């Protein structure tokens, strides 16, 4: 077996080791990088910034726990922005596994920082099955779909919900998601109820969302951890996403180098076999 063939057939565990080393190295050499902001992230920030103080915004935690590294920084940065502007926040989730707990934990933590009161400044509606029912039903009556909040308190007992009966009482929907539910927030909610929808989505989903941003159906987009870092930059709250950009940079460069070596080995091996 030639040298290039051996390189081409390198045991996968050597690649894993290389990835591990690349991930670990920046931990010992911490460095910060300037985060450039894309027009899509800026558009989302500007839309929230333009909202009147004390209005109501729906923030969704449509995320499974496995994608929290990408989605949680977005939700946190969004809550910093919303609470700072004294906007009242209603949260919900269409994801049963973890959605309600994640919304509860993140929102309460940030609310404590800004001294916000549950029931007055923010409410967590939690989860209800069948996202079509939830997305469409909230356009007519929130209470008929969510008789109680996540903890079982009837909505009638929550001061914030006295004036929030349907989408028409909200100014903006900020969707944080790791799955295709965003399509329905656009095609059902934005299209039928004419409420602006902005989104923070995982990187895997981001390329598709450009179609919605381009058609004006989506008001701003955050794509993956870089998108979260952009929003952290915009609200000036640098956290996990911004810190993660160092490791992210190195791994991307490693991958490009690996792809280059793999191709070089492939072509050199082919040339050798052709010569023989």
């Amino acid at each position, binding site marked *: 077996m030639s040298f290039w063939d051996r390189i081409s057939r390198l045991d996968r565990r050597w690649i*894993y080791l290389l990835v591990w080393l690349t991930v*670990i190295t920046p931990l010992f050499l911490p460095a910060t990088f300037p985060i450039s902001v894309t027009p899509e992230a800026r558009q989302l920030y500007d839309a929230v910034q333009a909202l009147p103080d004390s209005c109501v915004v729906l923030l969704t935690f449509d995320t499974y726990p496995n994608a929290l590294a990408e989605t949680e920084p977005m939700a946190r940065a969004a809550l910093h922005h919303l609470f700072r502007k004294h906007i009242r926040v209603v949260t919900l989730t269409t994801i049963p596994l973890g959605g309600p707990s994640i919304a509860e934990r993140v929102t309460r933590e940030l609310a404590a920082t800004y001294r916000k009161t549950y029931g007055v400044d923010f409410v967590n509606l939690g989860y*209800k*099955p069948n996202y079509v029912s939830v997305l469409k039903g909230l356009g007519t009556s929130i209470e008929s779909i969510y008789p109680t909040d996540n903890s079982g308190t009837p909505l009638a007992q929550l001061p914030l919900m006295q004036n929030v009966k349907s989408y028409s009482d909200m100014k903006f929907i900020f969707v944080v998601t790791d799955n295709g539910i965003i399509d329905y927030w656009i095609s059902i909610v934005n299209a039928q109820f004419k409420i602006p929808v902005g989104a923070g989505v995982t990187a895997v989903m981001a390329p598709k969302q450009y179609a919605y941003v381009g*058609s004006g159906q989506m008001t701003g987009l955050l794509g993956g951890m870089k998108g979260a870092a952009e929003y952290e930059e915009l609200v000036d709250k640098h956290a996990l996403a911004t810190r993660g950009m160092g490791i992210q940079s190195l791994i991307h460069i490693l991958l490009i180098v690996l792809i280059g070596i793999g191709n070089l080995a492939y072509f050199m091996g082919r040339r050798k076999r052709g010569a023989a």
Partner: protein
Amino acid sequence: MSGWEVFQIWLGAFLTVAIFSFMYKDNPLYKAAEHIFAGITAGYYVALYLDTVVYQQLWVPVTHNGRVWLIIPGILGIFMFGRLWPKLTWLARFGLAFIMGTTAGVFLASELHGNVLGQMSGTMQIQQVAGQPNYVLTALVVIGLLATLIYFYFSKPHTGVLGVTASVGIWFIMVSFGAHFGYTVMGRVSLLIGRVYFLYNDWIGTMR
């Protein structure tokens, strides 16, 4: 940091390492973690639905608010359990038909109105960059859309003009899929970063 907090972090770290151990090879520790995860997920679902649906959406409105008609979806829901016994499988059809019917009714309108019309009108406008019209971008979007649609149109053979347009389509598609791959790498790496930060900051942090 209290002893309980340290225990929580060590438990998370142990489970993280147990799952990572699969990268070397399949092993009992990984298998055990995987099965516990499946059980926790199922238990999470059962408790959540019993509380939010059976109790909050069904039991309370029927018994406290007099909305007795909700017994009908309750019965249709119970019929779903017919799936557990081969002879009663057909009972589940009524509930399923209801869900499929309402979903289809919503989708028929929303897909055409929200997606088809929304995307078509988005294509029929001049694309803007930083508030300025960009005609090159507009042409790119229109040509790319038509070429992609023709590439996926299989009712006629891809020959002549159709063939040329379809081959332009495949070039556009390759660029888009390349971008998709780049983003997917980014997503997977981000999730790894989340775990590495947990191990480094939280777990190793307890040992400092």
